[in-house]
């Protein structure tokens, strides 16, 4: 399998506080890696380091063989190939759903409008929102906004998708719609990093589970096996509490 992402001894500090303390991880094409762990252990920060939203204080990140840190043009090149989905969607409120999806391909990737629009419309079918194409974000439910955000990320043909708690800000009844779309993406063989508290989703869809606690990766492995019984005490305890 071709390797997409390699983290080697990643260290992240905010001031004197260490947030990530030597994270090493390799992700191959088609993997769906689910990150779980207590609040404040640096899961979001880890994703943000990968696409250069945060600088790092040690270690190395390479994406498709290219070093990410330090070099602004390398960081931009990586961002063009990595789609990110945020907990609070972060759609552009002044644009319609369709315009949201089309903006980056047209402006950043300099693609022809007509081509982008055709692809965008197909993506709205995929996320089951063809009827909401001209709605503004404020007119949509959270679940709808998150699916637009997924379509927005997909429209740039990313090689990696990163989800940071994509369903945590949603009403319970719309969580399922978003998870269904994510399942479809998994079936297509997309490479995904997913920070989530949805353990059931991680067990069903994930190809790997990474349990993080106190700035480190404590345990990783097959999601089903880990949910059934993790090796480490800390992971077992955490998965037990969250699984209910």
């Amino acid at each position, binding site marked *: 399998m071709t390797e997409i992402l390699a983290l080697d001894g990643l260290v992240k500090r905010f001031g004197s506080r260490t947030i990530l303390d030597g994270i090493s991880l390799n992700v191959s094409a088609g993997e769906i890696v689910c990150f779980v762990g207590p609040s404040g252990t640096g899961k979001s920060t880890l994703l943000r380091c990968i696409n250069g*939203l945060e600088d790092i204080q040690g270690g190395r990140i390479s994406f498709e063989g290219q070093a990410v840190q330090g070099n602004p043009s390398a960081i931009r090149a990586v*961002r063009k190939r990595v789609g990110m989905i945020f907990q*609070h969607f*972060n759609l552009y*409120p*002044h644009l319609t759903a369709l315009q949201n999806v089309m903006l*980056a391909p047209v*402006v950043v990737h300099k693609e022809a409008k007509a081509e982008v629009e055709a692809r965008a419309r197909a993506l709205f079918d995929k996320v089951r929102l063809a009827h909401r194409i001209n709605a503004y974000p*404020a007119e949509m439910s959270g679940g709808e906004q998150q699916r637009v955000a997924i379509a927005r990320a997909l429209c740039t043909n990313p090689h990696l998708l990163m989800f940071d708690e994509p369903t945590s800000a949603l009403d319970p009844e719309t969580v399922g719609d978003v998870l269904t779309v994510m399942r479809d993406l998994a079936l297509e063989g997309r490479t995904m990093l997913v920070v989530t508290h949805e353990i059931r989703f991680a067990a069903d869809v994930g190809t790997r589970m990474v349990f993080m606690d106190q700035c480190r990766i404590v345990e990783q492995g097959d999601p089903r096996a880990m949910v059934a019984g993790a090796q480490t005490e800390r992971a077992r305890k955490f998965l037990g509490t969250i699984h209910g």
Partner: protein
Amino acid sequence: MMQYWPLMLKSAGTTLWLSWLAMLLGALGGTALALLRQIRFAPLRWVVIGYMEFFRSIPILIVLFFAFYGVPLLLEVDISPFVAATLALALHASATMSEVVSAGIASVGRGQWEAAAAAGFSWPQTMRHIIAPQALRVILPPSVGVFITTLKESSLASIIGYIELTRTGLLVRDSTGGGFLPLLALGAVYFVINYAISQVGAALERRLHIGRRSDLVGAMA
């Protein structure tokens, strides 16, 4: 009195032109200052803040005198009352506008910058396509107020001998025997102009969907 109306209206046009030009320059300058403030380089920020505080604290009349009497002495160039007035009003407006534009940019949530950065937008692309359109909704209403203030302040140009609306009104009053009526007419013309400006501003705001729910979401995201 009636025979002076064309004169009054013509000078109303002069006042509008002077204030519009000053406002345009002030808005451009204010935007440039606000963008400079975005740059994370402390000395640059101090310069911008110093400029703003300076022009906010100095009476505009003194800026006007400085432009009209001071600049020619310093630079050895002749400066017309029109240029001096435009310059003084624009300097003053730019200080206020930089505050207004900064507040507009600040009103756009951090999540918008992050979404743009994550998607690979450069800083100018982010500004142009994502931040500016949202900031504009916040910037427009106070800008209309700045324009009206500038227009009222432009009456000070009469002091350095520029024949704009106020000066014309006072001249008319002199040549009609110093009555109360010309002053009333003068006030009425200012009122009509400024009222029209705020109406146009309100229409523009509606066009930009100000007050939609989407503004709340944008601020939160």
